[in-house]
């Protein structure tokens, strides 16, 4: 009846506050690693976290997971999930290598076909989810194995495509206008997804579907079409990530992008997007990606971690801790207010 007058403050301001908090954490994290992770070696040159090269490295490494996280943000806003993006990245990398190396296509033609293949892979997810009304988690768990399996079948698990021309490697290994080339591509995609999610009726529809798919249907929104579109878009971006991955490493192999989907989901959720759909922002996702990338790379620069040779373990541990902390952090105000109201009355 006269229920919650308290949450009328609006969820928008809460998201904003959460993003601000995450930004503060990110800056603190960065300065921590800058302070403890930067050293001078015997020859007197500065090494570790504080060097420009290392910062560019972080940027390069975060582009592919960042792209997947951007692809997953609309998906998760619709209360869906796509576990197959990492596998699709691997499949697309192999397809690209094969089309160019064995198929004799030019790089641009192979790249264009790879993007089409990515969209088709996403389309497969979309068809299964919207036509057969299967749950996204199960569908993409299936295609997660399927895409990786296909990639391994094509290469028999052994072939690795290398010797890509310098013009292509430029996108993954060089700088353009002072920044790693792929950072520009990433920024472009990020801006596009931001506009899509926050400034268009498509983004509005994604949220509506996430909050209440039935409510969206009864409002006359094209629910199936919008849901299909987020998965196709995710496939397309996974293909782009595959191209950048291949250009960065200079090789295409079947295990490319293994486990990336989990990092990407972590980044999205850390960025404040609700796994139940509806709530979230692209800015949050970008901050989430940055927080994880800085953590991972920063740890590898800490002398104590280097001495213990435990960078992988530590980054896994701390990413998990950060995620759980973020999730508890978002419910703490609610817990606190209910605790207070329970004790005020006595």
């Amino acid at each position, binding site marked *: *009846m*006269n*229920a*919650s*007058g*308290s*949450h*009328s403050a*609006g*969820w*928008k301001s809460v998201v904003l506050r959460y993003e601000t908090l995450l930004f503060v954490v990110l800056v603190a994290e960065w300065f921590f690693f800058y302070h403890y992770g930067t050293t001078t070696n015997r020859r007197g040159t500065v090494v570790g976290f504080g060097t420009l090269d290392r910062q560019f490295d972080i940027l390069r490494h975060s582009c592919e997971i960042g792209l997947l996280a951007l692809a997953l943000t609309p998906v998760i806003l619709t209360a869906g999930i796509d576990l197959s993006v990492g596998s699709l990245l691997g499949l697309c990398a192999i397809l690209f290598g094969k089309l160019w190396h064995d198929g004799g296509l030019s790089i641009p033609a192979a790249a264009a076909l790879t993007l089409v293949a990515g969209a088709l892979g996403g389309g497969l997810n979309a068809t299964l989810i919207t036509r057969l009304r299967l749950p996204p988690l199960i569908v993409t768990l299936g295609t997660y194995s399927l895409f990786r399996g296909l990639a391994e079948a094509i290469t028999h698990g052994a072939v690795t495509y290398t010797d890509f021309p310098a013009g292509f490697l430029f996108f993954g290994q060089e700088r353009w206008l002072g920044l790693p080339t792929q950072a520009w591509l990433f920024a472009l995609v990020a801006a596009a997804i931001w506009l899509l999610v926050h*400034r*268009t*009726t*498509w*983004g*509005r*529809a994604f*949220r*509506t579907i996430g*909050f*209440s798919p*039935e*409510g*969206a*249907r*009864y*409002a*006359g*929104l*094209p629910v199936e079409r919008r849901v299909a579109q987020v998965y196709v878009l995710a496939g397309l971006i996974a293909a782009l990530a595959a191209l950048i991955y291949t250009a960065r490493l200079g090789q295409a192999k079947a295990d490319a992008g293994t486990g990336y989907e989990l990092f990407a989901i972590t980044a999205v959720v850390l960025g404040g997007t609700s796994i139940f759909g*509806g*709530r979230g922002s692209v800015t949050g996702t970008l901050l989430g990606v940055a927080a994880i990338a800085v953590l991972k790379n920063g740890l590898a620069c800490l002398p104590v971690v280097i001495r213990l040779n435990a960078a992988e373990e530590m980054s896994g541990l701390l990413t998990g801790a950060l995620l759980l902390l973020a999730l508890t952090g978002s419910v703490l105000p609610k817990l606190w207010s209910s605790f207070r*109201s329970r004790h005020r*009355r006595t």
Partner: protein
Amino acid sequence: MAAASPTPSPLLSLRRAAKSYGGVRALRGVDFDLRAGEVHALLGENGAGKSTLIKIITGAHRPDAGEITVAGRTLDGLTPALAQQLGIACIYQSPALFPDLTVAENIGLRLEPAGAMRRVDWGARHRRAAQLLQQVGASIAPAAEVRTLSMPEQQLVEIACAIGAGARIVVMDEPTASLTQREQERLFTVVRELRAAGVGVIYISHRLEEIFALADRVTVLRDGQSVGTHGLNEVTEAGLIKLMVGREVAQIYPPAESAPGEPVLTLRGVGCAASGVHGVSFEVRAGEIFGVAGLVGAGRTELARILFGLTPADAGEITLNRERLAPRSPPEAVARGIAYVPEDRRRHGVVLEMPIAQNMTMAVHRRLFPGGWLRGAAEQGLARDFIRDLAIKTAGPDAPGGSLSGGNQQKVSLARWLATQPRLLILDEPTQGVDVGAKSEIHRIIRQLAKDGLAVIMISSDLPEVLGMSDRIGVMRGGTLTAVLPGGSPAAAVMAAALGQNERPDPA
């Protein structure tokens, strides 16, 4: 103690009960008595404090002040467990049973003592369930899964649980909201039997005619205060409405003043095998309110779903403004100018988490946001206009839909569809669970829309509403339209058609 009181001491009494929720005073010192063997109606607009009062009685909330006396024990608050122990049971609008368990298992869960390693005596459990169900006059098999039962059958199971638990005080919160006339009658019989057995029944309903038919006394709440307890032989319907709203409501239904124009919608033998609708033919004219009456399950909502493209028709022909209409999906129906305000506004009518403004523009994305780019100013403007025109009580366009009361949510749902400037407006139970004040406002809005030339289909289980609002009344039964009666037909004629009685109502 109260032992010296001259009249028989009540089963339950509340003295100066007060409760606030974060600064909002929901109850401000309410006195309430329930005697053994009476049906005591609780009446008030949404927000008057009925739910809060019930929550205090069932132990869900503790009052901030005041005291409760139950069965001779005076307490300053109850807990759910204590309330149950003292013989207080509550039957909610939508029963809280486990759908995947059988009736006997559900009853067993409530009534049998819990304990680890306790063996279930299935024979006794089923016998007991059968006996309790018989007591409430329900022909339900104890082995039936609850999911296969209708809403009223589930309510009867709840009542059976209450009887089995030996409840002395039964609270019924809008028990008839989703019942048909006949199911309602059966429920009333059960309630009367409870009363005869000395149980005190607290009965909440928005439907005054029910209260007059069933209750012995009525307590009216307004703004968290009791404005009086009366015997039902002492008050009139108009008097109660006045007490509830604190003012005279001159006419409950605004008069029809429109002269229907050209036919807007025509149905010829329309059917849909999947939803059990068949052979529906009728037409709706511009400026006309076409009421659709019938029992729950007669196919009224299913008909609306066909017109809105949710379950496409597979037989017959529909024309809208003389052009063929066969929507395969809601977007197609919306594009053709069909608007549907659904029955379940919390699930379908309003997205509770989203701001009012976004809820209102949801069906007009194409028109309001050319190229797909959101325009905040246009959205806010539209929302502010509707908030003003429909007198929606809200903190503003950015307040989430869930923060509004039922009547105001319904207005938001209505605004969303009025924004589409539809040719045909379908309203499904437009005032269900809406308080009296908002109800008459919604009626006035609907009448005004018809006057402005809109064709309106109004589905309603509220018989006085259908009779009072409709220019013509279509009656559905068993998936098809069985009769079209003129507006102002006697209630008995509509009920007879809905029940399938061919004989004319008594000429007297």
